[in-house]
């Protein structure tokens, strides 16, 4: 029963994906169809054209199992010999260093802004 609900709701989300693809045909911006679909669904929810309950279970399932959909591409790594070589190890190192910097900078920026807001509130 629960599975049926999820399947129907996922199909409903596909409908928005197709609508997004249609919008992409009309508006020639370098934005993917799925992003247009996201906007359309968001708009439909805000304008109360559709109810949250119609998509919530399907959306929650897709987001909870997001990692599953990456697995086939991850298996595809073996098609790139270079990734499995010395250069591959270097790239992993590069991504590691860059990711640490990105996370650190983002966290510090947000923390600083929040700290300022908190500080202001204390002054009041």
């Amino acid at each position, binding site marked *: 029963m629960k599975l049926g609900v999820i399947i129907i709701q996922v199909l409903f*989300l596909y409908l*928005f*994906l197709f609508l997004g693809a249609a919008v992409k045909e009309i508006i020639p911006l*370098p*934005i*993917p*169809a*799925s*992003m247009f*679909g*996201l906007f359309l*669904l*968001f708009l439909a*929810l805000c304008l109360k054209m559709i109810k*949250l309950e119609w998509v*919530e279970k*399907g*959306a*929650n399932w*897709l*987001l909870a199992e*997001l*990692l*599953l*959909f*990456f*697995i*086939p*591409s*991850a*298996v*595809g*790594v*073996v*098609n*790139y010999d270079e*990734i499995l070589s010395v*250069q591959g190890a270097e*790239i*992993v190192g*590069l*991504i*590691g*260093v*860059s*990711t*640490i*910097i*990105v*996370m*650190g*900078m*983002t*966290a*510090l*920026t*947000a*923390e600083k*802004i*929040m700290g300022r807001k908190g500080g202001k509130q204390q002054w009041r």
Partner: protein
Amino acid sequence: MEMILVIILTYLIYRLSKTAYGKWSFPLFHPLLLAPILLIFLIFMVDMSATQYMHNSKWLTNLLGPATVAFAVPIYKNLAIIKKYIGTIIVSITFGTLVAIFSTFGLSKLLHLKYDFLISILPRSITTPIAIEVSKEIGGLPTLTTVFVIITGVIGGIVGPTVIKSLAIKTPIAKGLALGMGAHGVGTNKAMEYGKQEATFSSLAMIFAALITLIWGAVIIPPLMNMNIHHIL
């Protein structure tokens, strides 16, 4: 028939590694590391090529489309929070995406990555479906970009908690934004372990990072790559 079998097998192995990771949270048991390794081993045993496997499991990859659309639901549910923190989110994520592109570019130059790799690695810190689109727009190889996005996710999921701890980050918004910005969906998955607020900010970070990187893909990356070519010549 083969397709159904492959999908069921992939799902079971995914469940297995997710359970194992949930139980021991040992980094190498990460579902995006353990599951693909087991699957590569299995398809090798039954003489299926990776390309055939990817073709047979394409419906799973296909679900990334509606999964991206599905992000409208958490955005809608958290509209009040977004309105309250919109400034913090935009400033942090704009800065984060710039740091991601420039640090990746700089380090890639340092390693003398070849052109295909260099251009495909630039959109690595955003969610796969959008990263693929950015990669196509700027002339990269989508499969290669996917691989870099996944490596980013796995590494980000592992180093994220250490970064948060060593910088003594306190607020849920900073923790969530850092995880979503640095490691997209995988980071958001990690943020769920911290709490609901962290997970919300992480998925918001991921969405905003994708949107802002779409802009950078048109504005910053092409001149950066041109500069790069002149430098070589």
